[in-house]
């Protein structure tokens, strides 16, 4: 299957004569030293990844790690310094301004942290903006915009102005606006960071629901691990512009590649994320086990009941393959310790 988005060796360097940095000796310097030597800031360093159609791909990292820059490079809102990007199989960096505009109009839409709504337009005309600049007739674009507003739960608010809505509602408008042009890819740049925690949770549920309903490819930027874990099919962790690890939530929590990622995930209740395969042990020779095995994909928490009540260890299987056994000892260790030792 061809990936929806493919990024290879992407660099974005801000500063004077930025193009000399990628591929030279300078490229290996740490961020701070590069800055001191050349005055250039490498916001995105040699990043490669692929996003499959229909996937929710989350990019996570501390503030300043280059997340916004990375996502803006995808549609060249920020012009990359070097590297390859393709969307739907088409190389983005080779596009003419006209083709690029078309990509932004029809294929890729974006939702912003600070909404970016136009204060002088009513909600309806904000949502219809993308269609308006494509030359869609007024009746048609208003019909479509009304439909989108209903989809995000804002029916009846069409004729309000953005400043008359709460933050959460404004972001719903932003969402409706992005959906209105029926794009294949939606990019979210920390869309809920400016919202209250309760509303944030609502909105996350909303995104999950929309993803299930309309089935688009989502690239979702966040600095909030809980958000990343609930939404992401896969998560990419960014540090100082570099990709540190890309993997499923489970891989990140179960096998962080270094202390940076480990630090990120240390407060995650492991039993909520990890599956049984992470805590199996080898059976002792001749050990007796329960009759009914557990599938390896079971989340630890969901197996607590059975394991704790069982008299003997339970086998964990992947189809026909036996991965090992678990008993109360493994279970308790997983439930109690959130803080796993950092691998060397």
């Amino acid at each position, binding site marked *: 299957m061809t990936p929806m988005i493919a990024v290879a060796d992407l660099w974005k360097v801000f500063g004077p004569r930025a193009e000399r940095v990628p591929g030279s000796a300078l490229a290996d310097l740490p961020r701070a030293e590069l800055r001191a030597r050349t005055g250039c800031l490498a916001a995105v360093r040699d990043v490669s990844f692929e996003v499959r159609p229909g996937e929710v791909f989350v990019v996570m990292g501390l503030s300043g790690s280059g997340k916004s820059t990375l996502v803006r490079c995808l549609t060249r809102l920020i012009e990359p310094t070097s590297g390859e990007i393709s969307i739907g199989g088409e190389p983005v960096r080779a596009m003419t301004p006209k083709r690029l505009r078309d990509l932004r109009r029809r294929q890729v839409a974006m939702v912003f942290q600070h909404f970016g709504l*136009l204060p002088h*337009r009513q909600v309806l005309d904000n949502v219809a903006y993308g269609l308006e600049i494509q030359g869609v007739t007024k009746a048609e674009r208003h019909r479509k915009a009304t439909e989108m507003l209903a989809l995000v739960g804002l029916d009846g608010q069409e004729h309000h102005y953005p400043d008359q809505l709460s933050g959460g509602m404004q972001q719903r408008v932003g969402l409706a606006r992005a959906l209105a042009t029926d794009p294949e890819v939606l990019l979210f740049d920390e869309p809920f960071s400016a919202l209250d925690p309760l509303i944030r949770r609502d909105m996350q549920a909303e995104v999950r629901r929309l993803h299930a309903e309309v089935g688009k490819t989502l690239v979702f930027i966040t600095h909030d691990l809980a958000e990343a874990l609930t939404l992401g099919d896969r998560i990419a962790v960014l540090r100082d512009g570099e990709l540190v690890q890309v993997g499923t939530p489970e891989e990140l929590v179960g096998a962080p590649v270094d202390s940076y990622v480990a630090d990120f995930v240390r407060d995650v209740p492991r039993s909520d994320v990890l599956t049984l395969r992470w805590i199996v042990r080898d059976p002792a020779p001749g050990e007796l086990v329960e009759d009914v095995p557990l599938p390896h994909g079971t989340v630890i928490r969901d197996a607590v009941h059975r394991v704790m009540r069982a008299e003997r260890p339970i086998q964990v299987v992947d189809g026909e393959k036996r991965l090992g056994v678990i008993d109360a000892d493994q279970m308790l260790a997983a439930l109690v310790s959130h803080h796993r030792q950092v691998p060397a």
Partner: protein
Amino acid sequence: MSAPTLTRPGGRVLEKAAEADAPRRGGATRRRTAGTVLIVLAVVAYLVFRTDGAPDSDDAAAFRFFDSVRDWVDANRDTSPFFLYGINYVRLGVRLLVDVVQAGLYGLGFAGLVAAVSAIALVLAGWRTGLLAFLGFLAFGVLGLWDESVDTLVLTLSAVLLSVLIGVPLGVLAARVRWVGATLRPVLDVMQIMPTFAYLAPMTLLFLIGEPAAVIATMIYAVPATIRITALGISEVPPTAVEAATALGSTRWQLLSKVRLPMARTTLALAVNQTIMLALSMVVITALIDAPGLGQNIVNALERVNVGAAFNAGVAIVILAVVLDRITTNAARQTRIHHARRSRLIQTGIAIVVVIAAALVTINPESLPQWSAAAPVNDLVGWIELHWFDATEGIKNRVSEFLLNPLESVLVTTPWWLFVAAVAAFGTLVSGWRAALIAALSAAGIAGLGLWQHSMQTLATVLVAILLTMVIGVSVGVFCARHDRLATAVRPVLDAAQTMPSFVYLLPAVALFGNSRFTAIVAAIIFAVPPVVRLVERGVRDVPPTVVEAALSAGSTPRQLLWKVQLPMARGGLLLAANQGIVMVLAMVVVGGLVGAGALGYDVVAGFSQRELFGEGLAAGLAIVLLGILLDRLTQGFHDSKGPRR
């Protein structure tokens, strides 16, 4: 006017002043020593080399040169391609514009125009403003000045149309294209310090006297504000909205027309407001180059020393200023409010019907009950002359004897090269060598124009006026900053003062002090004190409350707080006020040439009316510009002493 305040935001300047503190401290003692040495040197040089201050010749090389330019232009106006295909078309175009506007306004007739202005005010700015506009325009009829008021309005609107047509696109470009902004900035800087008088003579040379020259001069005077405020508004549009619109695939043109311009609309409305106020103030002055309107009444009345008649026209100008200002400021405010579209459409529809109906009605404005301010004001002036003569003469003579005369005689008897050297030396000390170089070149230019005595007389008047302005302005400003109640009471007065056309300020000064040099000083003070008060008040109020709190908790008395904390920390605001004040004072002192201030201002006016004095008038205009640049550059450095502005 508040345009310069807007375009040189105090925040930026204050910031710079704060930055400048650190490196300056080390050099402070050295600078002080250098300053003392320079002063001693200058005094000694003056005592050794002073001249007897010979009066200016009326046949300087510069005058003859300008006369010959005028003669060449007169001879070639109908043959040179520069005029045939350039200037003359501009003149015809502007004439056409004026004629169209004029036909429109006169075509409406008295009732129609009153109805139209009220309706526009009502729809754009609400019913209160509508009522104000209605009463204001009726008042023109009552004052017996209907035609003159309409003429002034015609010229103002024409100039505003031109300014907006030229200024808004330039402002957008200046905000969006870096090199355009960088090129325009110094040009606008110079244009904004040019005193109104300086524009007039070159305009008559190119466009002859009359409406086109008046409209173009007015446009040149007003357009810097249009450009600056538009650029400010466009550059303040939040980048997030622009980015979101870009991400949806907007073209550059769509970004401009659907995002940037609509989002900047409140600031754009303010730009129009400032343009109108500046234009009105200039249109009145163009009476000197034969433009019709209320300015004519003032100039004629002042020539006959009929303060009452001038005052009557002054009242009409003030009313026009207030009505236009209220309409545009409230319209700007309304852009923030979201209206139901339908009710707005209905309102507009009704308004149009009423205006058409009114335009069909013929009412002669002279049939209104007539009232004129002339007689009562003349009575009052007579009474003042009778009863206050001793007091006003006392003040006038005291200031002349102890300030003006000594300063003037020192300046006039200073040899020009010593003056240039002193400007260069002190300029370097306070403003950096670049500003000093420009200032010194301006000084040398003044000497070269052959108007040394008159220039120095004007300079002396300006210096005395700015001294008094600063004393009054700083006292009132500090007082306002410390007494909230007073500040609230004074603010509307300051607001009103800043919307008045400068010409109007002559009238109370003339009423009190008759025709004299001192009258110009008083007018300049009345003109320049309001902005100085504002800047000083803001400077003092901007002192961080934590610092004030710390000083109070250390046991400072209010007086110590003022002198040791608030004033030193408000230095940026004070110096900016001095810089703004001095430019305004110069403009007014020059206008004072009309009411007995003599010197450069008088030369300019004489140049318009007497053919053989044309060259001298033009030279005087140029001298005024150079004086303005000199004063601005020297004081600019006050608040940016690390070096010249970029």
